[in-house]
């Protein structure tokens, strides 16, 4: 079953008088349960594709379906709902809320999705076990290592069971040991729990953990 379909996807930004063509007709299919890495140099359009697939910005033209829902037709409110229910984000800088503990960072994602923050389901318990962060949930981000923060960010991204996990340079701020741990976790989530993952990375070693590597250049997939 196909999870993500993008056809002839374009995105044009206007910066002052200049039009910037960030995506110039991207075609991409990601099957459910697939782990795909997108690689490419800076300015190739990786982040723009990430932002569109995550519902953070609308495409200019083309078709993009996530879990059967067409993003091109979506209003801002629809895209907010998409982020709440269908996609989960993992960022290079972890992006945990600094005033909350690791556990509360996870709970708030459930709360935003309208669920009881204290109810956990068995599948998510399994995810937490895989992430190995059970003992670190009561600490605030400043008391956690980069690897621990990123694993909590992954837990937060998965707490609402998104159809698609989007990871933007998830190991970009980590040392080799923590990078390996995080990538192994992502791979484990994909293999053991069937989580669909799209990961953006500069790092070929990180990309190697994926089932498939897609290369982008100048706003196109090559």
């Amino acid at each position, binding site marked *: 079953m196909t999870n993500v379909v993008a056809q002839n996807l374009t995105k044009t930004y206007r910066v002052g008088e200049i039009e910037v063509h960030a995506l110039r007709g991207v075609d991409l299919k990601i099957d459910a349960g697939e782990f795909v890495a997108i690689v490419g140099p800076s300015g190739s359009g990786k982040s723009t594709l990430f932002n569109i697939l995550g519902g953070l910005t609308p495409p200019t033209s083309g078709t993009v379906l996530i879990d059967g829902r067409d993003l091109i037709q979506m209003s801002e409110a629809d895209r907010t709902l998409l982020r*709440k229910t269908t996609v989960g*984000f993992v960022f290079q800088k972890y992006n945990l809320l600094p005033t909350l503990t690791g556990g509360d960072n996870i709970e*708030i994602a459930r709360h935003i999705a309208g669920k009881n923050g204290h109810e956990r389901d068995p599948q998510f318990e399994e995810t937490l076990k895989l992430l190995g962060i059970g003992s670190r949930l009561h600490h605030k981000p400043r008391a956690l290592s980069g690897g621990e923060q990123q694993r909590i960010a992954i837990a937060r991204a998965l707490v609402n069971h998104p159809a698609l996990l989007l990871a933007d340079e998830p190991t970009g701020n980590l040392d080799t040991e923590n990078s390996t741990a995080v990538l192994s976790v992502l791979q484990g989530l994909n293999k053991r729990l069937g989580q669909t993952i799209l990961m953006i990375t500069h790092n070929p070693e990180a990309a190697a953990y994926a089932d498939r590597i897609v290369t982008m250049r100048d706003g196109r997939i090559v």
Partner: protein
Amino acid sequence: MVFENLKHRPVRTLLSIFAIGVEVTLILTLVGVSRGVLSDMASRSRGTGADILVRAPESAGFSMSYTMPDKLVGFIRAKPHVALATGTYVKSIDSFNSITGIHLDEFNAMSGGLKVNKGRLFQGPDDLVVDEIFAKQHHNLQPGDPIDFGHNWRISGIVEQGKLSRTFADIGRMQELYSGNGLVSAIYIKLDNPANTEAVKAALQGDLPTYKVDSIEEFVSLFSTNSVPYIEAFTKVVIGIAVLIGFLVVCLSMYTAVLERTREIGILKALGASPGYIVGILLRETVMLALVGTAVGIRITYGTRSLLGVFAVSFPQEIVPDWYPRVAAIALAGAIVGALYPGLRAARQDAIEALAYD
């Protein structure tokens, strides 16, 4: 999250709470002083021991500015059930102070007597008797001290407060000094039985149809903020200023909070938080600041009462619990309006730009 956010910036949170507290204190102190002063005036009017008060026809509110012939005192004395009647002559010296000229013996007979704390009651023509509050307010006056109070007086004695006025002089000297020979400002009447008040009042009103004839209870009921238009207007102006302070403080505090939390707002948006959810967080923080600020403001009000008791003794401040809900609503309204612009700004923030913010 709301509590954690407030804890994260304790100085800003405390300053905001304090500023809202000041707003609340400002309102409660003004209302409390207005009521305290009026209540003190009412209490001193009751302290005369009189049952009925007669004032000049032109008198309005609780004013004693107008005069009437002092021969009316004798006329009233002759009326049935009138046990005592005495005239007073009141001269305003400044906005807050006046001297009351009294017939000492008559006034003492009616009120039960001025209780002398220091010195003695007036004997010479330029002797002035003041109460303990007035003495304290004027650099701790002592018997024998001279005082230029519309005239060069000499303090002869200091009496216990609570009877009609804070300053007393001989009525004859007052009438002479202020061109009031044969005139009085008010006539206080004590009856043989207070139960006869309404009947005597009606009879007097019949005899003196143009004069203001009030029972003492009717007269003291005039000492309310509602019957003093400038107090109401002044209170509204101060409430307006206080709300503006609360609005500006919360607006500034929340605006800086939104700027500081740009990235966090981006994170919440990435997690699917709606604009309403983000505004809701800020509003909940604001409500918490306003409620804690209100509680702090109420507490500070006890401090201002103590300070006034030391530095402005003639401005007694009442504690006004009936105003707590009103002042809480005022503080909340000002704070919520102040949080709206920062809240809307946060809600409209672009998620991608917010996430890129360092």
